[in-house]
């Protein structure tokens, strides 16, 4: 079958357009990579970076030589992993009963949950609560206050409603109690939605700068976003006061950005397959 000329032109145009589109989304990342590997003088010249100019690892050496970068990594990984797991557990166990039509006072519970979506206490009351709970200056201050999000609960409720009730009934006839059903049936079936939420929550916890800034004081508790901000501030200070460093602020910023996004980028592909599954589950099955 021969394609008409117009269609060919359209395909070619389409291809070029899409390549251009992927280039402009990819270039910023590539720019940062090149910048982080460029020498100081070259990095400051600016302009387009298709390849590192004056190749050097100096910026990475600067960032990684900080004694606290590994402490910060450790703390951030702890907060992200523990926070995500706890958050998923609490969110799904809250959503499961609420997905049941037979739950007594269901509307009351739902109203209470939705209420938190619309109204919040504000920063100072939240801070005081965290303080009164003796969570200040602990990593738990980054995890517990925002453990459950009403929005996430609603998403999981909707997902669980899509699971046929017959599955649960058959399990119940085999003698499983609600707790058992929740752990052996609901959670495995919810994997797609939980993976999606895990990604949102993990990225949020990984990048959480503000909470770390206001709740943490001890250097030993420093997290990655906090330390990166400090490194950048230190570079800027050095520039303002005329102290010369070995690498430019620009490349150090680029290097820290890359170091902080690489772990999350590495997790992404493994979770992404559930995204696709999640969409299919919702759309194809009746």
């Amino acid at each position, binding site marked *: 079958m021969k394609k008409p000329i117009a269609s060919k032109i359209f395909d070619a145009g389409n291809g070029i357009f899409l390549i251009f589109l992927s280039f402009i989304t990819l270039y910023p990342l590539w720019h940062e990579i090149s910048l982080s590997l460029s020498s100081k003088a070259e990095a*400051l010249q600016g302009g387009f970076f298709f390849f590192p100019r004056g190749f050097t690892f100096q910026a990475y050496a600067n960032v990684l030589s900080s004694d606290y970068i590994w402490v910060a990594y450790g703390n951030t990984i702890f907060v992200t992993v523990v926070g995500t797991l706890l958050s998923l557990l609490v969110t799904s166990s809250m959503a499961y009963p609420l997905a049941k039509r037979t739950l007594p006072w269901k509307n009351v519970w739902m109203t209470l949950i939705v209420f938190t979506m619309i109204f919040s206490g504000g*920063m100072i009351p939240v801070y005081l609560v965290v303080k009164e709970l003796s969570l*200040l200056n602990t990593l738990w201050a980054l995890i517990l206050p925002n453990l459950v999000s009403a929005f996430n609960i609603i998403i999981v409720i909707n997902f669980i409603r899509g699971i046929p009730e017959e599955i649960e009934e058959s399990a119940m006839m085999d003698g499983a109690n*609600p707790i058992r059903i929740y752990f052996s049936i609901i959670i495995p079936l919810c994997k797609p939605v939980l993976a999606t939420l895990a990604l949102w929550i993990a990225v949020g916890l990984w990048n959480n700068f503000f909470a770390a800034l206001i709740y943490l004081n*001890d250097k030993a508790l420093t997290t990655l976003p906090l330390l990166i901000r*400090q490194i950048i*501030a230190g570079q800027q200070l050095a520039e303002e006061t*005329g102290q010369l*460093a070995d690498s430019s602020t620009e490349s150090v910023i680029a290097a820290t950005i890359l170091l902080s996004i690489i772990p999350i980028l590495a997790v992404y592909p493994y979770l992404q397959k559930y995204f696709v599954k999640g969409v299919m589950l919702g759309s194809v099955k009746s």
Partner: protein
Amino acid sequence: MQKKWKLSTTVASMTILAVLASGCGGSNNTPNKGSNQASEDKTVTYKFLRNSGIAEYPADGGEARKVLTEAAANAGIKGVDFIAQQAPGEDYQTKLNLLASADDLPDFFDIDSMTLSRFVEQGLVQPIDKYLENAPHLMKLIPQYYWDQVTFDGKIYALPNGMRPEAFNSPNVTSVLVRQDWLDALNLKAPTTLDELHDVLRAFVSDDPDQNGKNDTLGLSGTKLSRYNSIFGAYGIIPSFWMERDGQIQKGFTLPETKQVLTLLQQWYKEGLIDPDFPVMETKQLNEKIINSKVGLFENDAFLVDPKANPTSEALQKATPASKLTMIAPPKGPDGKSGNPETNAVASAPLRALSVKAQNPDKLFRYLDWLVDDSEGGGFNLGLYGVEGTDYTFDKEKNLITQSTSYADLYKKGYNNPIRMAFIIDRRWTTEAVREGIETAQKNIISNALWKTVPAELDYPDLETKLWSEYFVKIVTGVWSIDKFDEFVQKYNQQGGKQIAEQANEEWKKMKK
């Protein structure tokens, strides 16, 4: 089956509520108050909080914490210990507010002037006058007009940064920088007046100063925040400053001189002497233009004359080895006036305030005073540069400090920053070229009649940042004719400028007494 559901969920929700309730009730908050009646030598651990980003600073304070406290003890200030904590970025003031609302303020902390005035109102910080009586070095190194800015109802509430007496330690380091090699290539002299500056700019733009055969050079450049203060200075004013006129003070940009300067700048812009990109440029873009030898003249800091003291000029030298930046005095105007704006070191650096609950403030201030004492046994050099001989050497004759330990390593040992809770600008490590540059920059200074921010300015913050910016850029670039300036003055006064001027004059008269 339904019943089972009901029962288990009710039990579950009850349990959750119970857990929540018990969690809220328990509070093991034991305030740790220092007892004032304890003997003078008892060790007090002061809690400092800085708005800084020294990632290298060790959690335990490193070597410096021990060395400094011991040296202070030898000088007679016994029993001082400290914990220096930091929080980086602009959200620092938010953190401070939260600490204040939770009654958790550290003993001595960084603060900006706006937050300070609120803290004073709320009684969160205490006046430091009586402690300063025992701090002669601080009083000597911090000028009176700095103290004035942190004085509320006649009492001093914060410690500003000071500076050493040498001219090169002046906070005024900004003037006009020119590409000396371009001047040499075109056989021109450094401009001293506006007319000469005009000719130099024209030559830079049209006579191919970099001799690459391309018409790719610019004259005067700046960023979107540049107001070309040195050109205004040639008419004796600085747009954002309060200027004295007939026993009153007025904002510079409402004065008739501003119209003259705008006319001149508009003319220059039309002739192509000013970088047409300036209204949208950030510092980074300007630096790129400087490094790529596109710009011949701009306002910046004296550090740029030494490629070893500034990354931008270092990169410029790498890209064009023959390049040379020279700092020149601001150009003279038709009446022989000239000047750069006075730098307000109080506004640009954090202040330090003392919490009302601070432990033994008297000892703290004696320690801070020791920290800025540069005589034998004082802590000045020790705090900033580490141990003499190991970390630095001092050449008394040249008044030059040569550091052998890099700043990163100094920070790792715990020196310099963030522990400089009292800070005096010291540039004894700079080269001769930079010192000359700074001396040029600080010679012709136009001062601001009033530095204090009046309440009306906070009520109408857009007047200066938006309204003035818009008229400045649009008139200079020729979008609007110069006659629009009168409309600006009228609008400014109508939209709150009059109130600002009234309050400012009131403050100014109070200060003059």
